[in-house]
């Protein structure tokens, strides 16, 4: 039963991820509030997806899911990215 339902994740793993998330949030606030736009925007654009990725990978256990679910998540996110991309083909060049 346990093998079929994936491994039981120990508390310390979750706590560890939580601490990293708090630290990343601190980084985010510092770069957003203190740095110049040229530095803070790239920082925001890297740290934020990283935080989201940690939640997906550990809290939502994508780390332990099979290729089926991972592919589905990828397809969904890719669809959103493509929508934004094609939209910007319009608004960037108007």
């Amino acid at each position, binding site marked *: 039963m346990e093998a079929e339902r994936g491994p039981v994740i120990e508390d310390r793993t979750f706590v560890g991820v939580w601490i990293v998330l708090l630290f990343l949030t601190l980084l985010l606030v510092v770069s957003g509030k203190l740095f110049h736009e040229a530095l803070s925007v790239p920082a925001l654009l890297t740290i934020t997806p990283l935080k989201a990725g940690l939640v997906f990978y550990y809290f939502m256990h994508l780390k332990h899911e099979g290729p*089926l679910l991972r592919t589905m998540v990828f*397809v*969904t996110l890719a*669809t959103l990215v*493509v*929508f934004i991309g*094609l*939209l910007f*083909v*319009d*608004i*960037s*060049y*108007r």
Partner: protein
Amino acid sequence: MTTSAHPPPHAEGSYLDPGGRKGLLGWILSTDHKRIAILYLVCLTVLFFAGATIGVLMRLEQLTPGSTIMKAQTYNAMFTLHGVIMIFMFVIPGLPAVFGNFLLPILIGARDVSFPRLNLASWYFFVAGTILAVMSLFTGSGPPDTGWTFYAPFSIRTGTNVSLAVFAAFILGFSSILTGINFITTIHRLRAPGMTWLRMPLFPWALYATGWIQVLVTPIIAITLLLVILERFFGVGVFDPAKGGDPLLYQHLFWIYSHPAVYIMILPAMGAISEIIPTHAHRTIFGYKFIAASSIAIAAVGSLVWAHHMFTSGMSEAANTIFSLLTFLVAIPSAIKVFNWTATLYKGSIDLTPPMLYALTFIFLFSIGGLTGVMQGALALNVHLHDTYFIVGHFHYVMFGGTGFGFFAAMLHWFPKITGRMYSRKAAVASWFPLFVGFNLLYFTMLVLGMMGMPRRYFDHLPQYHTGHVVATVGSWFLAAGLLMLAGTFIIALFRGEKAPANPWGGVTLEWQIPSPPPVENFETIPTITRPPYEFNPVEAG
């Protein structure tokens, strides 16, 4: 098991007459996918005829110049209502809700879908949305006059009952989403032992691709409609130029859903055709893998072409070019299907049964619709054709000639299985003549009117378009007569049709291996699948 003094008109133990709750409650509380399909069928039939009646009335208005039977404001409400009913309450739920619900579990060898209660919930959402839409006709300042597309800024500023109508569409979206979630999961989890993906029939493949579109784009229309409501009530400004908003972004968001929505409409119909042609030609389908893959390709590429509805709206030239190119590409997988269906007929043992007749008609009408679509995808042509009757003709060829006739063909094909009765083949074929003649008189004329410059959604028309309008309206009468004849064929068969055998067409997919109508649990024992889906032994044909 029911017992009675008189023999029941259908098999005891069928889904039509199981033990348990009796009467109406037994239907509207049922989580049996077959009963839910019938619930949808009843609603969709009523709504289709309501929408068709409005269409006939619109054509009557256009019979003479100036006001014929209604005022201009009424006409605006009429074409809005016609679109909202036909699109959101007939064509989008359409085949998935009726034939998907009834047949998907049976075709893959399952007893029901993955989430039967969610399935019933999707019907409740559908009914709720329909009731809200009807309410929007009679409350507030009258029915919306924006067209089914609800373009900002007019939809934000008009006093008519836009908020209630778009909220109804929002609720209807939940019905679509839940169906998609259910079908995707069902196909992943409940295929019978031995049924690999490549042994699965083509209707489930089509429903799978459709399910993904339902899941991935319906929420976009949900948020767009929600924003229209927020704009109307709170003035958030997202589509209001005075506050920095851009009406063109409304169009983008609207069409990001509404274009893939047309593939929600057509893919299941194509899937049904892919079942009907091999069955009635008694020959395996040509190019099974290509047809399966093309369903996925249509879903994928079809999600990238939405802005071809906006070529004249003021987008950048770059966007116009890219979307035009993508639009040409999306025609390819559809064409692959048409070629493969046609190739399936070659050296087949063709039985020109009513399902086959209507399926062949689908191919013809859909091809005209598809080709006119490609024409519209060309930027130079689009400048002249946009917002003319050419567009109206085009989408009726694909949505009505395509999905509509696909729905009829599916009904003719699976009616004996669903009801346990057979209809009159003569009546079904007789209905075809007024349907076909009326359809083309009505909609081909529109293609011509459009090329001549007749704008759509206009209450009145200039004298040079008058002849075309008269021809089209006469066509609508033939069409209406054919629809009534076809409906009558089915209704009479319900009460007086001969008992149908389990396999009236000599089909080889799983639904023909169980009784007509099916028992509640579909299969006595779940089959184990070892062969591809369309293998016809010459001995079994006919």
